[in-house]
């Protein structure tokens, strides 16, 4: 198979997964007892009113027709209106999503290079002091759930030391400094939860490569230590590293839900949590679809990148 064929195949698979996910999300809300008409009318439902609303919303159409309408609307960016207050979901999503993207991006920019650097540092001398410090700390961090880490951070930096705000709500008047101040703790919380996996995976991927005959050869031909790590070991460990990075960035999404709720940060995650408590089905559907698409796209990108990173696939015989 040529490279383009492999990439096409992977992309078709990714799109297939997305379609499957959309069916699940759609059916998930169908399976819930009562329909949207019930949810809208609540206590005041009479059979006539229900029928009226069903007619208006097209709920009497067969399942596949409603799915198709919902999906095409979703793809064209029409997410519908909130059941709770009738507001357009699209505008709210745009605002929330950009906040979440800022939070996730800051975390990724800090966490990924840090994790790879720490993983490499640990792999240089396995069993050495640096390695033991890094591995045991990362093991401890993996063992703590993200909300606990966040609570501990808040206790230390916001309550005891009073350096940073405990709440990360956003006001329109905020300038860059304010943004940085409110972002530090959520970003730290998220970084801690995803860092450990990436550090450990980088370490083991690099260690695995370091025991290969190719590295022994590089040592025996006189490649200096630093170059050995960066030029010989790291490129060969990139495949697994890319995958674990993507997996953890995808994991950021679920971390975002918890952290946003804890810090009261107005992002997509908290939007979804609020919608769940209000049984606001269209918002839950939209958020779920966005999160899932992000997850699938990220994994697909990781696969494509690790395929491209492998010269055996890039250059055929």
């Amino acid at each position, binding site marked *: 198979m040529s490279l383009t064929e492999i990439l096409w195949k992977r992309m078709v698979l990714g799109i297939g997964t997305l379609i499957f996910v959309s069916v699940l999300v759609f059916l998930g809300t169908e399976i819930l007892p009562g329909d949207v008409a019930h949810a809208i009318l609540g206590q005041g439902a009479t059979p006539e009113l229900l029928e009226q609303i069903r007619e208006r919303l097209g709920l009497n159409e067969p399942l596949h027709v409603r799915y198709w309408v919902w999906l095409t609307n979703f793809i064209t960016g029409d997410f519908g209106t909130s059941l709770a207050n009738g507001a357009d979901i699209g505008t709210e999503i745009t605002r929330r999503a950009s906040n979440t993207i800022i939070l996730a991006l800051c975390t990724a920019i800090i966490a990924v290079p840090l994790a790879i650097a720490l993983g490499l540092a640990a792999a240089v001398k396995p069993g050495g002091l640096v390695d033991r410090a890094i591995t045991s700390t990362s093991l401890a961090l993996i063992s703590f759930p993200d909300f606990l880490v966040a609570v501990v951070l808040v206790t230390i930096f916001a309550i005891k030391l009073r350096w940073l705000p405990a709440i990360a709500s956003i006001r329109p008047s905020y300038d860059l400094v304010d943004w940085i101040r409110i972002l530090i703790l959520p970003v730290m919380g998220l970084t801690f939860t995803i860092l450990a996996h990436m550090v450990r995976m980088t370490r083991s991927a690099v260690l695995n490569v370091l025991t290969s005959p*190719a590295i022994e050869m590089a040592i025996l*031909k006189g490649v200096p*230590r630093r170059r050995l790590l960066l030029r010989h070991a790291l490129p060969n460990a990139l495949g697994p590293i890319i995958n674990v990075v993507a997996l953890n960035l995808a994991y950021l999404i679920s971390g975002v839900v918890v952290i946003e709720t804890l810090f009261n940060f107005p992002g997509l995650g908290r939007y979804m949590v609020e919608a769940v408590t209000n049984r606001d089905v269209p918002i839950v559907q939209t958020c779920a679809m966005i999160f899932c698409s992000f997850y699938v796209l990220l994994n697909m990108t990781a696969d494509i990148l690790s395929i491209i990173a492998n010269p055996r696939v890039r250059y055929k015989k």
Partner: protein
Amino acid sequence: MRDTSQNDPADEPLLKVRGLDVSVRDKKGREFKIVDGISFDVQPGEVIALIGESGSGKTTISLGCMGYTRPGCHITAGSVHLGGTNVLEQSLPRLQELRGKEITYVAQSAAASFNGAMTIDAQVTEIPVITGAMSREEALAKAARLYSDLELPDPENIGKRYPHQVSGGQLQRLMAAMAMISDPRLLILDEPTTALDVTTQIEVLHSFKKLIRDNNTAAIYVTHDLSLVAQVADHILVLKDGQMVEYGPTEQIISDPQHDYTKALMAAAHLMPEEIHAPPAATADEAPLLQVRNVTAGYGPAQEIIALRDIDLTIHAGETVGVIGESGSGKTTLGRLISGLMGAKQGGVFLDGQQLKHSVNQRSRDELRQIQFAFQMADVALNPRQRLNKILSRPMMFYRGLSQREATKEVARLLERVGLPADFAWRFPPELSGGQRQRVNLARALAAQPRLIICDEITSALDTIVAQQILDLLEDLQDELGLSYMFITHDIATVSKISERIAVMRHGRIVAQGPVDQVLQPPCHEYTQLLLNSVPEMRTDWLDEAVVERRKLVAALDNA
């Protein structure tokens, strides 16, 4: 040992190894010596061979000369002087300079030792470029010259490829170019031709010999094959269990070995027998045990990548049929086809005149029982977490319906039959040596009481002396049980000793087959001749003649 005068610098050896000890620490923290008191000299321009079987410490010693030990090992005593420098006392950065410039290394498996993520040129020119010894252009020009000296095709462009894009024999030569680019004073070659096909081996060996001679480089040549080393080395150091057994000029070691171990190595060397005996003619009249008729088969969804073409092969009861060919010739595929691991596109396999179904799933248990398979890599084929008792009793219970109690008794008998103590039944495969594991591998095939065993390169991964013991065992079993073997190998010398009939395969076809004496006796098919021509002979002038002959034969084959 050479007696060098300490006062005369002109007589000073290039490399002086004295009392080298290397130890490993076992799980309980005890030190265990794997190299014990090794001393030898290498004169400028001289080639010294370290020869021994696996575990003899030959690679460890050669790495020790570079001040390197594998993880878990360390040098506990001795000195290594290169010129005036004690290699073992250098700091790591200084060592890395020495390794790049003064002493260079050619590894056993170039395929594994090249970095798959960099182009060949980038790796070959890496050291002179990063140390500033040459500009990139100079280094590339020098690399191209070396490629051309090593007779690589398209020397200007071959280096632009990635390692997986060139063949194994080419990679091994490219690695030699990498080692020679800095004009080292000492070159270490660690089994540089072992991973290659026999017919490629002599070309590569010839290139190395020429390179060493033209550059007047000193070299340490590490190998287990005495006949190969006779072609390149000036001195031979024979090793066993980390100790020196014998040390002397090549001529003396091969013509007049002193030590029993050296004699045993000589006896087990892969040489063609002086005379190939004609097999007894009686077998021809009997009905054949197994017939492969007109088989074409391939890989891929519709078997469109053809691996076997128009194969006809007959195996009689109690006979050994050798199937010989190089990697990619289809010999293993043929074995897989017979045992039902893959199906044929055309033709079929007949057992006692009855056509067998293509797939193992469709064959009856009794048909399966009669054809057993022994794999090349016993350490991979045996489950490391099952005791031998379980490994061996399973086929007995499955094929012969024995109870576990009966099977356990039978296992003890079987183990003794293949020359292992009965109490090995309670051991796990990793606790056994390579030769012992191969015996277990055979015992597992025997446990089914088969009539035919397909032996796929079962002696290829073993040391010569151990391999000989396995061959003897095969012969004993055949005499006693009337077994038939299909012996798949790339080693024409072995096959000529044990087979009644042989089939020579090339590019998925059988190019010659028949009684062993007829196929191997001249005049024979050009390809058979090429294989015969590639078997080293224990004389020092063999290589140059063989290379000339090889080129004629290859040209003839290409034109055919």
